[in-house]
């Protein structure tokens, strides 16, 4: 008695957990509660959200409303215990439903199709009847041809006065929804693995410097297990505008004292080494940094040489007697509209320029600005060229550093989901029974063809398909009898 009761409770809990009612409820709850997190800014400073709440509840009530909301976990909602619980219920629902329903589907697909008595055919969702004045074998041959050409797998059963062809196509379409469900489970597993065994951090690495760790959001250090060197950082602009086209840095990986990898990364093309990925995510100037000017110098018709100069440094263009001294630098050079003075209009290197004081034999010394983005500014009298290649060591590259061992699951899950959706929505499992019988005993009289079928989806199209099969058959049979 007690045994049975226990079993009943277990069964009803099980069927509740497998039910579509629970699924619908969970869909509604997750969809609605997710909205909160899109209104209240997540993981923000309290002041921001208090200001937001003041718009709805007034200034005086806002702080206490905030406290209630914070207790409810709204400020970091997607990680709050109750939201995570919904996600867990959602996963359990999905898993239990799959375990519960799968054996039935498996049997449905596994069990061989059986011939059906003629009177049962007439009860199927799609049915048709037609008569031909021909021999039963002739008619059968034509139907066999048609089924073959539409790629139905069929079997044949013979009785005294009748033949039945029974066939099916697209059995595996029954698994489409399972594939989708399993893919969702895989993606959730991937997300859990990622949050358990992975990390997300950042690293602001100045040009020319090296680091063997990154930093988590809370400031904790994350050892990398190898070192990463930033050779240079550079922003490229669309010609004639200040709209960035590319953020780039060149990184070198040093493992066990050896250089093992060198790559120029951009947004959308990260560097990956030993499971850790470095993404280009920001950049900036290092406060008060003094760097090195890199100048490419080409005397008229001569060889190009590359120079590295500190501020105040001097150089000579080989074989010309022209001397230059670096006297000034501005990161974003422009001319002030009112005063005409040269000023910087941004802190970043949007339009870097170096001022060089030249002394050219037979001329007054003068100062000229050479701009990195406008190479024509480096043309000197006499056809000599100075190219401002870089001011190195004053910028840092902002790297997002992450390790996510779960991402494979996400990718596999995604591919499976795409396949599953395709199978579920665009393939149907169709079964057709075609029964052929002579009207009267002894193989006499016209042949009566009864067709019945069912499909897992899109019945209208299936009805058309059956009509098409019949009209093709009657065309072929009539064609034969004329011969």
């Amino acid at each position, binding site marked *: 008695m007690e045994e049975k009761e226990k079993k009943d409770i277990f069964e009803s809990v099980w069927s509740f957990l497998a039910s579509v009612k629970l699924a619908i409820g969970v869909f509604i709850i997750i969809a609605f509660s997710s909205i909160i997190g*899109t209104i209240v800014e997540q993981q923000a400073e309290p002041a921001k959200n208090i200001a937001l709440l003041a718009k709805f509840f007034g200034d005086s009530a806002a702080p206490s409303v905030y406290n209630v909301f914070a207790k409810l976990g709204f400020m970091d909602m997607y990680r709050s215990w109750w939201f995570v619980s919904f996600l867990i219920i959602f996963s359990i629902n999905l898993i239990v439903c799959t375990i519960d329903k799968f054996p039935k589907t498996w049997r449905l697909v596994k069990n061989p199709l059986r011939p059906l008595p003629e009177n049962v055919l007439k009860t199927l969702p799609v049915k048709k009847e037609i008569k031909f004045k021909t021999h039963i074998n002739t008619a059968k041959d034509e139907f066999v041809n048609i089924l073959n050409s539409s790629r139905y797998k069929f079997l044949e059963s013979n009785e005294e006065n009748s033949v039945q062809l029974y066939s099916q196509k697209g059995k595996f379409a029954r698994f489409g929804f399972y594939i989708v469900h399993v893919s969702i489970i895989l993606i959730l597993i991937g997300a859990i693995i990622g949050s358990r065994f992975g990390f997300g951090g950042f690293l602001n690495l100045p040009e020319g410097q090296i680091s063997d760790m990154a930093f988590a959001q809370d400031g904790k250090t994350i050892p990398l297990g190898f070192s990463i060197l930033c050779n240079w950082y550079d922003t490229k602009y669309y010609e004639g505008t200040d709209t*960035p086209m590319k953020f780039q840095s060149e990184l070198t990986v040093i493992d066990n004292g050896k250089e093992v990898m060198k790559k120029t990364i951009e947004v*959308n093309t990260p560097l990956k080494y030993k499971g850790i*990925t470095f993404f280009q*995510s920001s950049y900036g100037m290092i406060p008060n940094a003094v760097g090195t000017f890199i100048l490419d110098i080409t005397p008229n018709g001569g060889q190009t040489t590359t120079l590295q100069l500190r501020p105040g440094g001097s150089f000579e263009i080989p074989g010309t007697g022209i001397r230059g001294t670096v006297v000034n630098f501005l990161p974003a050079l422009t001319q002030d509209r009112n005063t005409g003075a040269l000023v910087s209009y941004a802190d970043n290197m949007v339009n870097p320029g170096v001022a060089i004081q030249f002394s050219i034999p037979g001329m007054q010394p003068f100062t000229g600005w050479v701009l990195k983005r406008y190479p024509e500014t480096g043309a000197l009298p006499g056809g000599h060229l100075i190219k401002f290649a870089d001011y190195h060591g004053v910028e840092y590259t902002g790297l*997002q550093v992450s390790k996510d061992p779960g991402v494979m699951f996400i990718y596999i899950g*995604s591919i499976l989901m795409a396949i599953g959706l395709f199978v579920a929505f665009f393939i149907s499992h169709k079964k057709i029974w075609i029964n052929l019988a002579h009207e009267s005993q002894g193989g006499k009289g016209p042949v009566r063809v009864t067709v019945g079928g069912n499909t897992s989806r899109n019945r209208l199209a299936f009805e058309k398909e059956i009509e098409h099969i019949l009209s093709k058959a009657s065309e072929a049979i009539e064609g034969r009898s004329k011969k």
Partner: protein
Amino acid sequence: MSSSLFFDISAGAYIAGMIVYVIYLVTKSKTVGLAATSVTIFGFVCQTIAFLTRWSHSYDFWVASNPTSGLVESLLRAAPLRNLYESLIFFVWSLIVIHLLIEFKYKNRSLGAFVTPVAALALLFIDISGTTKEIQPLMPALQSNWLLFHVLLAFLGYAAFGVSFGAATAYIIMITESRKEKTYIFWSIIIGIFLVVLIAMGMDFLSLSAEERKELIQSHFLKTTFRSDSGGVAAASYVIGIAAIYLIWQFGLGLKKVLGSLAVTPQMLEDIEYKSIAIGFPLFTIGGLIMGAIWANSAWGKYWSWDPKETWSLITWFVYALYIHARFVAGWRGKRVAILAVVGFVAVIFTYLGVNLVLSGLHSYGSG
């Protein structure tokens, strides 16, 4: 030839098409129906030309700044699907493709009267929202093939959802017996809000100078009416808005007779409503959610970060998943699922526009 001329012609043709479809609903004349279809096809051809012209301009633009980029890469980077303006144009184009396919498949023109307004409203929205129409340089994060396919498939999905919305609203009208039915009241409110907001935006548009129009969405949205500085104007706007909804509720049912006399059956509408979702759901899942996540992962190293845009697309996905389970597993039919199809599309609009319009007004999310 300038692409915007062809865009303007196609916009005019769609709006004319909408009017002719409605005349067709009223007169039931075959000639008028043929005219409606022809005008729409003409608009479609113009829009296709405009789309290709714009692609070619933006190709030249890209190649000018990136001379080393290969042919295929340049074509992909130049695909005109890169900002609000271009993606809305593509949405309208997809909507019309799907609409024409349905018209030929079902041999019934009546749905045109419900789908072309969605297209016309989107075009009107594009115009009065003042979104920039210039070909813009492509920001570094957007230079990704994933992003391109993400936008392409997601918008095809949105267009399919738009068709199911049109079919579901027509369906609700057809099965309504009396104005007191809750479904019909819901219908009146949704359709009313659509129209009222659009008219209010039109008034913003008319009250602004050409310079200010560019900022309509960011700084002047509904400022002439509902969000007016003058309390009286704002209150009057609400009164008029509610009156408009009341009028729609009062007279909307007239459409039922018209549809009924055009051999539109509720079964047909339900079929279109479901089939569009069956096409839209896989496209949106693969394009919108999966490719979006893959792109985010390749650009920022995080495939999911619960930002409002991502969260809203997840909400949209849940609404349509709900539709599918309700219909196939729980066996819901008729009104109940039609409401889900309407709610689903409202979620689509919110995902695409509301996140930028409403939520970014609340605090300073990027315009992403």
